[in-house]
């Protein structure tokens, strides 16, 4: 057990996976000697060599496409895209190849790759460094999308993603990379890739969140608790496929739901979850599902990012709204 940050947990999981399975290979820009711009791959190259921890030329389409080729040929590539804002160039490969290779060869070839990328705003980064494209990935058939929100879940989910026989897009909340520490047991135990986690129990409203927004949801829950209203907080963790069982069980209990995402609203995962809840639990709903999202704007430069992203206050306001609905 060690008390570590989320980015350290990522590093630990990578090291463990590389140790246990020599087909695991890390590739990406600056992942080698530099250990990644966030230090997620620090120390891996000196430990596992430059062939297994490879700095690539600067080309995200190449990185994704090479990962497809490596995976089909029996490696387990874990590719890093430096920031989610540079991952759009990987969509072609993810959608036209990674997510289809198994199906279009009817199981002859497969694509056990992981594409990791830091996601989200809130770190006062330059332009294009604060994007939240998770909905685009979640729309792609044949892949999984995972987004941890704590060191221990990052550790277990990343191990699971690497072991998974199919492609996984693994989004990491850069804002939480060093925000807090957690005891993590480096015992190599993966977490399930199809489970949401109830991280706080409550009776009055259900919060569904993921990544950095989970912390905001927890803060909002705390704020509400002071008012005597109790939010149940769910860390969705795996964004595709979604564990609606856990979500619906909670909503049926609380009768109210707020879904939170820091991505733009239109066609977001919040909309997907809202649609599902209304479809499958309409009669349990005491109020319409409320979506707390970023605005349908370009991610602004950092002077305004706090106004753009949801925060605890926005979530709490939405919770009050659904609780006062009649």
């Amino acid at each position, binding site marked *: 057990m060690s008390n570590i940050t989320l980015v350290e947990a990522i590093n630990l999981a990578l090291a463990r996976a590389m140790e246990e399975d020599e087909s695991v290979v890390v590739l990406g820009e600056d992942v080698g000697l530099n250990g990644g711009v966030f230090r997620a791959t620090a120390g891996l190259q000196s430990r596992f060599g430059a062939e297994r921890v490879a700095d690539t030329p600067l080309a995200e389409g190449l990185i994704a*496409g*090479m990962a497809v*080729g490596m995976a089909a*040929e029996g*490696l387990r590539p874990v590719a890093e895209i430096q920031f989610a804002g540079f991952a759009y160039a990987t969509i072609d490969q993810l959608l036209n*190849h990674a997510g289809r290779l198994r199906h279009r060869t009817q199981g002859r070839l497969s694509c056990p790759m992981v594409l990791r990328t830091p996601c989200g705003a809130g770190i006062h980064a330059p332009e294009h460094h604060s994007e939240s494209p998770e909905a685009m990935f979640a729309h792609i058939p044949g892949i999984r999308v995972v987004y941890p929100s704590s060191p221990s879940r990052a550790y277990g989910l990343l191990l699971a993603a690497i072991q998974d026989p199919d492609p996984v897009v693994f989004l990491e909340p850069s804002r939480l990379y060093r925000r807090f520490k957690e005891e993590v047991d480096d015992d190599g135990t993966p977490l399930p890739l199809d489970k949401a986690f109830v991280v706080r129990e409550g009776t009055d409203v259900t919060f569904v969140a993921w990544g950095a927004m989970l912390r905001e949801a927890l803060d909002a829950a705390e704020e509400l608790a002071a008012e005597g209203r109790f939010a149940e907080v769910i860390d969705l963790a795996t964004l595709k496929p979604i564990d609606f069982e856990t979500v619906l069980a909670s909503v049926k209990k609380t009768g109210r739901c707020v879904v939170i995402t820091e991505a733009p609203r239109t066609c977001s995962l919040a909309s997907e979850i809202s649609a599902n809840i209304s479809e499958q639990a309409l009669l349990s709903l005491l109020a319409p599902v409320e979506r707390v999202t970023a605005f349908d704007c370009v991610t602004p430069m950092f002077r305004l990012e706090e106004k753009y992203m949801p925060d605890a206050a926005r979530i709490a306001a939405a919770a009050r709204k659904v609780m006062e609905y009649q």
Partner: protein
Amino acid sequence: MTVAATFEIRFTRYLQPDGREAADLPSFAADPRALVPDYRAMVFMRALDAKAVAMQRTGQIGTYASTLGKEAIDAGIGGVLRKEDVLLPSYRESGVLMLRGVSPHRTLLYWGGDERGNVFPESPRDFPFNVPIGTQLPHAAGVAYAMKLRREARVALAMCGDGATSKGDFYESLNAAGVWQLPMVVVAVNNHYAISVPRRMQSAAQTLAQKAIAAGIACEQLDGNDLIAVRDGVGRAVEKARTGGGPTLIEALTYRLSDHTTADDATRYRSAEEVAEQWKQEPILRLRSWLHAKGAWSQAEEQALAKEAAAHVQKMVQAYLETPPPGPEQMFEHLYARLPRQYAVQLAQLAEETERDVEHHAG
């Protein structure tokens, strides 16, 4: 000003269009009979191709991309690759796949709209037909990376068209192959058209081979209608890659004698004269003329081969037509190694709809 670097692009051809020798032949061609299997393969390819076009015309398969005119490239590559190598084809490479052992009825299945066209039991590591232009090249770099990492004496050979050489994936992959000196060979089949766009509008580069210079890797331009040049050039590149010599880009010059696909009408954008001129260059006649001249191939053999090819084509059509249609559930099969439980609802819906359809047809 000083000179920082100089480069030279070489062009290889052994057989002239009429089959006469243009240069001293490489040793593998010393015994002309050794090339008869390649010749036979080319004739099979053309017969299969003609049938596929006909089947599209009669609605038995969907849109089909003809291989007419590139048989020497396909036969040459098929001939030099080893079983353990990996082929990454575009959509127009059914000829090479045949030589990889893949039954040609798969080609019909593929263009017939059935995923089972990409199941290659005979060459299981080869990549499927690849429609999005150029995207197979980064895959090739990944495959070659895996081979190199594992110290295997294997080669990843990717094929693409002249149009594909304009796409970022092409350059990014060659560049990566250069950086890591990967065991990778890219054959750019320059058939002078990307649908209607002629080669000269695709790039101002005098040759496509020279695109390798951007990646600092080896390259060669060769006459893709000359089986001996293809076998020679690709053979050298593949052996170089296999023995740690790094990647090569080969530009194989040929001409698309067909429409782009059966959905295209090439008369809209090129003249009958141009096509007629190119028929004089075509690879099968060229090789046959040479074999004839060498006394390595007879009229009788030619007639026997034609019959044999026709029979084979018939067998392939049969195998295609006898493949039972895919069930709707095939959509969900192999979507994931294990379909997530969340798909239960959609599966149930499909099952219900299928039942309804069955009842409907029965009723």
